[in-house]
């Protein structure tokens, strides 16, 4: 039996002694030495994840209700249906709005609290715990509380009544104009803590001498924050942008638990659309798969775009710095 598997090579001694004559020759392994040990993980990840993605792409070209029901090939009809469905575009619009608002609030809130708690603040540790708690509590646990806050006879309306603003009370969850706002506010509430954790950690890595040098040069707190701290945590901001985008595209739990995408689809997201297609009594797995593929393409394409843009900017900055040095 011919085997392509390499002989065991001591990584510390890449050149092994030849069996005859002792001539040193390089053993070029066809398969990396540790490959066999990652085979199980590779099989599982490829099998379960990438196979599922490919299979979703495959069934997106069928009218299929799952199980042993007939699979009728319909070409790109599911994609055409998605792109001509007004609810799909509502979901896309809601995703963009959610991403922009939550990302902005997360960055501003995260930087603000991280910068503030890097100073010596009274009861700083307590504030850290309070800020981080929303990150660790499961949405399913909090959803009933959020509903209680925003429903017609809930906390927000009670507060408005008590301060003489009864005219502003309304059905926050049960109106098309405000249901998305409730979902976004709940998202913001949970996201600031995550931004804080990352920014706080990143700020810890900034060289104190650089800050000190800034102070010696007469920079105030705000100047240090914007000119020294923020440029040094830019990688975190880019990571948060990508993570928020993916979160917005996949958003399901809070929306489903609070508004179920309603009323009249006003707070619909791609995640809730996909779930509705799968969970309905006349399941439409082909259409749900087409939506999932669209979601995947948007997520991957936008993540790559954000990465490329950040690299371009980094290259420009490096070029500008080099040019400055040359001058």
């Amino acid at each position, binding site marked *: 039996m011919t085997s392509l598997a390499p002989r065991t090579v001591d990584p510390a001694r890449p050149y092994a002694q030849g069996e005859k004559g002792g001539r040193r020759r390089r053993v070029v392994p066809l398969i990396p030495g540790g490959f066999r040990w990652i085979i199980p993980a590779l099989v599982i990840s490829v099998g379960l994840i990438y196979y599922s993605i490919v299979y979703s792409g495959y069934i997106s070209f069928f009218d299929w*209700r799952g*199980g042993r029901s007939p699979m009728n090939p319909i070409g790109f009809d599911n994609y055409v249906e998605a792109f001509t469905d007004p609810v799909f575009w509502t979901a896309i619009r809601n995703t963009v709005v959610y991403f922009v608002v939550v990302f902005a609030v997360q960055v501003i809130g995260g930087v603000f609290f991280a910068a503030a708690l890097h100073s010596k603040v009274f009861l700083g540790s307590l504030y850290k715990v309070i800020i981080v708690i929303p990150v660790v509590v499961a949405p399913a646990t909090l959803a009933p509380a959020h509903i209680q806050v925003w429903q017609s006879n809930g906390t927000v309306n009670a507060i408005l009544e008590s301060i003489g603003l009864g005219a502003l009370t309304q059905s926050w969850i049960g109106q098309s104009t405000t249901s998305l706002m409730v979902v976004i506010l709940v998202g913001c509430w949970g996201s600031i803590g995550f931004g804080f954790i990352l920014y706080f950690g990143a700020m810890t890595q900034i060289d104190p001498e650089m800050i000190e040098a800034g102070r010696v040069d007469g920079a105030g707190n705000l100047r240090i924050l914007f000119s020294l701290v923020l440029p040094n945590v830019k990688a975190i901001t880019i990571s948060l942008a990508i993570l928020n985008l993916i979160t917005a595209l996949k958003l399901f739990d809070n929306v489903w638990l609070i508004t179920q995408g*309603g009323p009249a689809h006003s707070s619909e997201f791609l995640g809730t659309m996909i779930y509705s297609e799968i*969970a*309905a009594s*006349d399941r439409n797995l082909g259409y749900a798969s087409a939506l999932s593929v669209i979601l995947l393409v948007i997520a991957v394409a936008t993540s790559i775009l954000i990465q490329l843009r950040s690299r371009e900017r980094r290259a420009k900055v490096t070029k500008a710095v080099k040019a400055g040095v040359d001058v």
Partner: protein
Amino acid sequence: MNKSRFLTAAGVVAIAAISLTACAGGAGGDADAAPADSGEVTWWGWTPDTPVAERYIAAFNEEYPDITVTYRNFENVDFRNTIVPALESGKGPDVFDLSAAGGTPDLWGPYAIDLAPLAEDTLGDDWESKFGGGYAEQLRTTDGTQVSLPLGGMSAGFVWYNQGIFDEAGAAVPTDYDSWVDACQKIEAIGKTCFTMGAGGEDTFPTEMYHAIANSVDPDFFLAAATGKAKWDDPEGVEVLQIIEDMKDDGIISSNALDAGQYPLANEAFMKGEAAMVQMGFWYTQYSGSESCKSAMESAGVSEPQCFVQLPAEFPDVAGQGNGSVPFGEVDYGLAINADSKNIGAAKTFVTWMTMSEAGQQNVANAIDLLPALQGVAPDWSAISLVDEDVQQPAIEQLIADSTATTQSRQWQTTSSTLDAIVVAIQQVLDPTIDLSVEDIAAQLQQSSEASAVGVK
């Protein structure tokens, strides 16, 4: 082969074996197996609740002590998402619930054996006529396979009211639109909600109100539109939406209707005694029981429940054309036997007893949450304890008679797309921030709906 290479090969083989085992379907059961007197049966369903199922099983075991039945209850959506992969992988139950809604017989039917021969052996050649109207037909696939036998029927299209609140308010149970407005004014005056309704989310409960109002406008309209013989934006459809808008403007429908779905919003408001009326189906009859009402109130958040007298009433004739509003109903669900089951003999015995024996159906009748599927079986009132028997028993008997007599299906002939479109239309009517005329909403409903071909002759 050296040791590491052996380990690698062993690992790959083990993973492949596990994967193949996990993906393997069932080996196939014997559909012709004779009913057996012993064995083990697993039963999965979204209904009944576990305590009710345990009562059914205990009664079954009095007759068949050597058959062990294990019931597993799922939340409705979880059941739909669990059952197909389980059946596909050969890990499914021996017996499972199968409803008529949304073309379910065609979707899950391929996993079930044909139960027509069993029904014929048990009830004779005219077995189909022994079941309630249309129940057996509703559980057949389009190719005519009887994939499930009916356990019970369900009806809707009426309201339940709290007698105590009406008495306190000095209001009469409404029979038409004007008397409903009048009753609501009196009930609101004592600080109670008149009619609680949850139309938020994606629940299809609001479609029952639409159907009830449509029956008041024109008893033939709803099913005609559902099956494509009429349009949802015909004058009758516009009138239905206009009545819903009027009900909102005149205070019949409360302003928080879109805060959540019928469950929990409306159920809790009614069970807590905060609301005088709610629209629920026949399943609500069970809460007339002197014990079950307590557990229902506790589930709604009442700490020390004091049961109240709840009674069914016909949906008010809101269109005022003298049509009344007839209830509508169909088979609620049936029991199917997994074609890959290794226990088909015992499963047949269980399904036969539950669906086709008088003893099994008497259990269903006495639970008063379903209409018994087998004709001629009625609740044994001596075994049922109500909160106020003198008032509730005749009302429930009338409800059973009306429900059994109905010829209108509930959701069997309405596609899921249409049900969703009706829900959205009602939400658009009730949402004060949506500026669309009822004509425009009706037109959108027509555009989003999909006509059903089920049961169309």
